[in-house]
C-alpha cells in the first residue's frame, strides 16, 4: 500500500522547520526556537504532567541545543527531531530525578489549557473522558500522544525522536489511540 508520509498541520502555525541552511548557526537556532518553543513545552508538559518542571526542562533543552548547535549533523536528521531528542533526554532525566526523590506529580491538564471553555456539556464530558484516559496511559504511550498531537509531529518525526522505525511508531500510535478510544467508550 502506498502510504504517504502525512504531516500534522493545524496544531500550531510554526511547524515548518527552518530551512535557511546558509544562515549562521545562531540564526538557525533562533529560527528553530521560534518554530519549536511551544511544541517542545507542550510535549514536555504532557510527558512530565508538571508545568513548572516542564518550564525548567524546556529551558534546559533549548540551552543545551544552543550549546551544541555546532555539533548538529544534518545528515542524521532534521533539526526539529534533533531538538526533540535533546528535550526528551532532559525530560527523562527529570523523570529519573523525580523517581529518586519520590515527589508527587501533578496533573497539568486543568492549569495549562483553557481549551474547552466554550464547549457544550456533551463535548465537555467527552473532553474530560479523553483527559482521564490520557492520564491513565503509561508514560511511553503518553509520550506518543504528546509528540503526535501536542508537538504536531509527523509519524516519521515521531519515529526519529523515539529511535524506532516509522512503521513501528505508527503501530504504537495506533495502539495508543485504540486504548484511548476503548477507555473513552468505557467511561461513556
Amino acid at each position, binding site marked *: 500500500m502506498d502510504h504517504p508520509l502525512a504531516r500534522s498541520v493545524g496544531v500550531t502555525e510554526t511547524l515548518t522547520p527552518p530551512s535557511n541552511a546558509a544562515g549562521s548557526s545562531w540564526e538557525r537556532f533562533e529560527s528553530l526556537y521560534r518554530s519549536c518553543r511551544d511544541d517542545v513545552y507542550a510535549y514536555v508538559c504532557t510527558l512530565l504532567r508538571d508545568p513548572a518542571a516542564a518550564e525548567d526542562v524546556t529551558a534546559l533543552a533549548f540551552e543545551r541545543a544552543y550549546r551544541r548547535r555546532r555539533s548538529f549533523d544534518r545528515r542524521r536528521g532534521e533539526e526539529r527531531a534533533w531538538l526533540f531528542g535533546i528535550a526528551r533526554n532532559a525530560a527523562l532525566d527529570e523523570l529519573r530525578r523525580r523517581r529518586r526523590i519520590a515527589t508527587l506529580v501533578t496533573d497539568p491538564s486543568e492549569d495549562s489549557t483553557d481549551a474547552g471553555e466554550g464547549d457544550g456539556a456533551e463535548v465537555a464530558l467527552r473532553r474530560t473522558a479523553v483527559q482521564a484516559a490520557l492520564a491513565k496511559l503509561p508514560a511511553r504511550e503518553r509520550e506518543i500522544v504528546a509528540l503526535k498531537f501536542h508537538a504536531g509531529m509527523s509519524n516519521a518525526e515521531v519515529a526519529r525522536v523515539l529511535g524506532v522505525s516509522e512503521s513501528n511508531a505508527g503501530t504504537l500510535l495506533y495502539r495508543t489511540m485504540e486504548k*484511548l478510544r476503548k477507555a473513552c467508550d468505557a467511561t461513556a
Partner: protein
Amino acid sequence: MRLLEQDPIDPEIAATLDAIDATLAGDPVDARYAELAEIALLLASDRPRVPSEFARSMDERVGRRFAPAAGSAGAAQAARRRRLARRFWETTGALAAGVALIVAIVVVAGGGGRGASSESSSSAASSAASSAASGAASTAASGAAAPLSAPVPHTSTTSGKRTAASSVAAPSYQSLGASNVVQPPTTGRKVVQSAQLNLTAAPSHIDAVAQEVYDVVGQVNGIVNSSTVTQGGPTGYANFQLSVPSASLAQTMSRLSQLTYAQVTSRTDNSQDITGQFDAATRALADARALRTSLLKQLANATTTEQVDSLKAQINDAEASISSDEATLARLNNQVNFSQINVQVNAGTPPVPVSHGGGGFGIGRAAHDAGRVLTVVAGGALIVLAALMPLALVVALLWWAGAAVRRRRREQALDSV
C-alpha cells in the same frame, strides 16, 4: 523499542493513521473513523499552552543567548569561571612552551654525541657497500706512472730488523679535519704512512668528486697510481690509489675530507716503522761497497791471470749486491717519502653536512638541528600516541558503555512512571 528497520505496516493501521492525519489537517474522514477523529481533535485541542510569563522569560534568555543576566549571581560566577579558565590555559600554555623549549635545548645540545655514534655505525655499512660495489661495477681503469721502482731481489738478510705497525680508524667524519690528522711521532725514524678514506656522494656527482680528487692530488704534487670511476643510473662508484708526498699527507687528507660533493663516511690511518729495515739495507750497502773497494785494491796487486779473474768475478758480485741494496734503500725511501692513500667513493645519500668551517653555527647547522628537533618531536609524539591509544580505546569503551547505561536508565524512567 529501538527498531530502526522499516517493517511493512498493516493496511488497517495505515488507514487509521491516514484518517488521524486527515483529521488533524482538517480534511473529512470516513464515518467509521469518526470516533477516532473526535478523540484526535480533543487531544490536539488539549495541547498544553506556554504560560506567557515563561514565554517572555525564554525569549529574554534566548535574546541574551543564555548568558546570565547582568548583575546576577550567575553572571558573577560565569565571569569567575571564565577568569579561572583563562588563567588555567595561560599557565598550561606557558608550561607546555617551557617544556618544549627545554626538550629542544636538550636535543640540540645532545645531538652531537649521538650523531657521532650513528655516523660511526653507518661507516661500516658504507664500507661493506663499497666492497660489494667494487666487485660488481664495470670499471674503466686508468693507470698512472707508478712512483716506485720494481722491487729488486735483495740478498741481504733482513732478520733482526725492527718493524712497528699501527692502524687507527677514525670515529666519525666530523672529527676528520686537518687538525685531527692522526700521525705518529717520526723524529729520526723512518715511518711509512698510508690512509684509507671512504666517501659518499650523490650518484650524479661521482664525476665531480673524481675531478675534485684529481685537483687535490695535483695541488700537493701527488700522483694518481690508479683510478676507477663508474657512473650511471642510481649507483656509482670510484676508487683512487694515490701517492702524495708524506709532508703533504695531512693537507691532502684535510682537503679530501672537505670535497664539495662528498661526505666522509669513514677514514683509516696506517703507519709502519721501517727504521730497522732501512738501517739494515744501509749497512748491507756499506759492506758491499767496502768489499768492492777491498777487491779493487786486491785486483791492483794481483800478479797472475787466475787471481785477476777470480777478483773480477768477486767484484761483479759485490757490485750486484751494491745495486740491490741501493734499490732497496731507494724503495724504502720512496715508501717513507710518499704516502699511499686509497679513496673510495660510493654513491648514496650523503649525510647532512654539519659544518666545514670549524664548528661555527651556520644555516646548515641550524637546519640540521631543526631537523633533529622535528624528528625527535615527531618520535615523541608517536610514542605518546602509542601510549595514549589503549587509553583512548578504554575511554571510548567506557563512554560507549556509559551512554548505553544512561540511555537504558532513561527508558526505564519512562517505564516506571
